[in-house]
């Protein structure tokens, strides 16, 4: 199953450069999706969300308990695209310079030379990001938002596409630091893997029993493809009423009594950007309220801080957002 699913697809990687239409996007994205799903079984929604984030030029936060395939998803996604991929294992003793890179003195040339850190890649897999100290986590802030790194006063631009796929354990687990609000806000979406259903788990035993399926994964697209797809996704139409709907939804989180901190304007931006990509993946050149609804929880929930009362009552931000989605009427023409 894992082997050969991508066999028929290599042509997609180098399609005609000028014809980067919606069909092209769907084709390439489909190939990536299939490649990833050949490794991560039974997690179609998570895979689709990961693709969405990729096309939305966002960063993905994968949160779940250890051992459900967080890293696998990140790696599979990274590997199915033929681009530079770096992986950082976050540990409590990781330093900021371990991420961004350092200026080292070159004895021969007698000058400082910048040694780029692991962020200088198209896809950066940050594993167990919440095991590093907040200081180190913050080192990612600038890269993620501004797509540049400043070391010793020199600013280095990062090549697009640039995507951080971070995994983290739930905050309640031992030896973790909660991500700072500012950083959480920079992740476009958070996805939970969840346990696989029994059938998928059984299939996994067969596949993973022998060797890592990752080894069989060959890239089905390259960085240029991804750049092109991102352009296409950006062109998806959003009707003013849908924009308004997204704004209303985000504004509603700010007024919600269960939330200490609502979603930021950046969240609205991310929400719409993701919705564009999500619609494009559906081969649609316009965004539906359904897209916004589907993405509301992954895009918004991790940015929200529940009040103490809500926390005690176990009303989680996910539930709050889902509830708001249920209550907010979709935009419709005047009665």
């Amino acid at each position, binding site marked *: 199953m894992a082997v050969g699913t991508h066999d028929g697809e290599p042509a997609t990687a180098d399609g005609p450069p000028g014809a980067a239409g919606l069909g092209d996007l769907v084709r390439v994205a489909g190939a990536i999706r299939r490649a990833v799903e050949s490794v991560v079984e039974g997690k179609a929604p998570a895979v689709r969300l990961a693709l969405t984030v990729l096309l939305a030029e966002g960063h993905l936060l994968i949160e779940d308990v250890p051992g459900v395939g967080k890293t696998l998803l990140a790696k599979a996604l990274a590997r199915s695209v033929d681009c530079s991929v770096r992986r950082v294992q976050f540990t409590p003793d990781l330093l900021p310079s371990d991420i961004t890179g350092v200026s080292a003195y070159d004895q021969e040339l007698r000058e400082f030379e910048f040694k780029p850190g692991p962020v200088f890649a198209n896809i950066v897999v940050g594993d167990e990001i919440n095991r590093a100290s907040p200081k180190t986590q913050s080192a990612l802030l600038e890269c993620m938002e501004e797509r540049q790194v400043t070391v010793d006063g020199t600013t280095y631009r990062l090549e697009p596409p640039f995507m951080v796929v971070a995994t983290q354990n739930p905050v309640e687990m031992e030896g973790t630091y909660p991500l700072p609000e500012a950083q959480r806000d920079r992740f476009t979406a958070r996805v939970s893997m969840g346990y696989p259903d029994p059938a998928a788990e059984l299939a996994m035993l067969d596949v993973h029993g022998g060797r890592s399926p990752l080894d069989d994964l060959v890239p089905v697209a390259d960085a240029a493809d991804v750049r092109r797809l991102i352009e296409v996704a950006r062109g998806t139409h959003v009707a003013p009423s*849908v924009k308004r709907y997204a704004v209303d939804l985000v504004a509603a989180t700010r007024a919600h009594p269960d939330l200490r901190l609502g979603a930021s304007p950046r969240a609205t931006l991310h929400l719409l950007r993701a919705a564009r990509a999500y619609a494009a993946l559906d081969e649609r050149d316009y965004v539906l309220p359904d897209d916004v609804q589907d993405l509301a929880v992954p895009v918004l929930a991790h940015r929200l801080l529940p009040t103490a009362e809500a926390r005690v009552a176990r009303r989680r931000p996910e539930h709050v957002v889902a509830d708001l989605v249920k209550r907010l009427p*979709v935009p419709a023409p005047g009665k």
Partner: protein
Amino acid sequence: MRLRMTVVAAVATLAGSVGLYPLFTTGRWVWAALGAVLCAAGGAAAARRLGRGAPLDAAGGLLALLLYLTAVFAHGRALLWIIPTPGSVAHLVSLAGSGWDAVNRYAAPVPLVPGILMLVAAGVGLVAVLVDALAVRLRRAALAGLPLLAMYSVPAAVREESVSWLAFGAGALGFLMLLTADAREQVGGWGRAVPAARRDAGAADAADGERVQPGALAASGRRIGAAAVALAVLVPLAVPGLHPNGMLGGDDGGGGSRTVTTPDPLVSLKRELTRPDDSVVLTYRTNDAEPDYLRLYALDRFDGDRWTYDPLRSTPRDRVTGGPLPAPPGLTLAPTRTVRTRVTVRPEVRRMTFLPVPYAPARLSVDGDWRVHAESLMVYSLRDSAGGRTYTVDSLRAEPTAADLSAGGSYPADIVRRFTAYPRSVPAAIRQLAEKITARANSAYEQAVLLQRWFTAEGGFTYDLSAPAPQHGGDLTAFLLRSRHGYCEQFAASMALMARLLGIPARVAMGYTPGTLSNGVWTVRSKDAHAWPELYFQGAGWVRFEPTPAGAAGQGTAVPPIYTADTDPTSPDDTGTSRNRTDPREARDEPSRAPSHAPAHRDERLDDTGAAAGDGGTGFPAGWAALVAGLVAGLLVLLGAPMAVRALTRRRRWAAAEPPSEPRRRLRAPGGGPPRGTGPADAAHAAWRELRSDARDHGLPFRANESPRATARRLTETLELERPAREALGRIAMAEELARYARSGARVPRGALRADVRTVRAAFAAAVPRRTRWRARVLPPSALESAGRGTRAALDGATAGATDLSRAAGDALRRVARR
């Protein structure tokens, strides 16, 4: 804000005072009351500024009121027109005294003499002071309803007539406004941000989420209040026994009108006849040597069991003023003479609200508020009793001859319609009996005479006061066909009924026989209470007949009228009836004289009975039939309305989505979506709205948080739609989705949306239980919803308008105060 409460309290007082309008002949009092309220409220508000406690506030209001009264009513004797002096106060007091006298002298509506005007101003001003003190200073808005209620109940107590529903509504809304304002103040006192001024912050869009709750609460409060007032106005219409005459009965008298009914006049008859003491009811003097009966009631309606009268609709216009009374109906040709009767009713007589007068009263001078019913010439009062009164009545006594009566022309249609109606329950045997008795007659008059003869002589009737009062139609049948024992009530009721059966307009009159004469004074005792039939003859009007045996073996002082004495020569006997003056006039030639008129009468009668059979009976049965038919029709209309609304909505939607002509395209509102190509997008919207209505009709939820696509998916899944319906639904949803969210100029499939909607509707109908299906057809909930929405919007609009108005007034006043 105290100032707003002050304004609202003043407005509530004014609104409550509207109910006083029926008390006065003109509306000038409104200005006096307005001034008094303004001064009282202003004085109290000014005193409040000093802040010395509630008593001082009230004192301030009272002082301002006094200054106002002085300025308006006694400025001539005041210092600087306004400062009260002992002279001006004395003048006010004397004015009040004269007003009080006037109030006692006149029945409502009273003329607005200065004294009364001053009393009104002072009274309303006092109420304003009280309301102000209670609502504004003591914060007891609910208690402030008491003085308002007191003011409101004045017309109800004095007039015994209900005030118009408009006045009631104004008063109630005023009080509601007071309560609302007070509640708003109290909530404001808790320190929470209450959206008092909705339009203050124009850019308050962001606060939407917070404002929803109190706004909705206030709106539902307003709705409840408005609904309560509407119910209070509407329920009496549906409940028998409460007569909201102001609303449906033409409010034409300038004041309220009122319905007059006496439950069952005939019931009192037997009671009076059998009184053991046989007390004197009234005495009278008259210039008539042989006085006619004194009539109280004319009972024009036979309901199958009893004779009663149609409720009288009384308006102030019917008042007896001393001038000529309405002309007696039908009395045009017969010779008349005027008799004057001066009647004194004994003071012990209670609850006699109708005046006994000889028919037909032409001019009446009597104290108190007496009114005359133009059609029957009954004289009655809404509040006064005849007991102890003395009055003079000039009556026009018709003296038709037998010839006049038999020569009477055919009857006017309205008389026939009203006075020949009888219920279908009357047994055919009575009609046959009546026809048998009158078989020899050639005219209506002869029929009447023969009927009277039959009762008094030929029929073998026995006057028997111990006979039970007839309760049901069957009792009359038994009286006529079997027992033939009875007293005047049975005789009168039977003869009037038989006359109607024969097509002669008839009614039962009730009152007193002339009584006994001694020393020029006629004395009428309770035993003289009597009932008799009155029959209508064109030219002579209503003519009395006397079927009850008179004399010792009958009704003591009953007198058969002289024009009925022309007995048929063929009848041999003339027994038993003592004072039956047989006037041996030439009756023989009557039959030969009459025939030319008889056919006319016969035709008339046949027409009547034909009509009675044809359209469900005239008069009473017709009334029931019409009522039932009306109810059924109303029910049908009610039932059909939702269906019609639904069909209309459907047609309107599709019509609006027709390929647009140029002007329509210009007019199209942009809506929430992209600037869309009008035609296809409109068709899609129309189809979608239709689909939504259809879904609601079939009880399928349509959720506001679902996009067209999601809705279609859900419906397809829950209803397990077949392929054609599924695809049709998908096409409709797709079209709507494109129209709503896609890039402008997107190709919305126009095509067969209408057919698709039909397909989906059929699929809905097939998928739901039968009951739901029928409800969707007959009582489509979507139509009911839109009606409900309309009503709600109207209610909200009205109440919001009222609130805005009061707020605007408050604002204006505040600005003035600040300056």
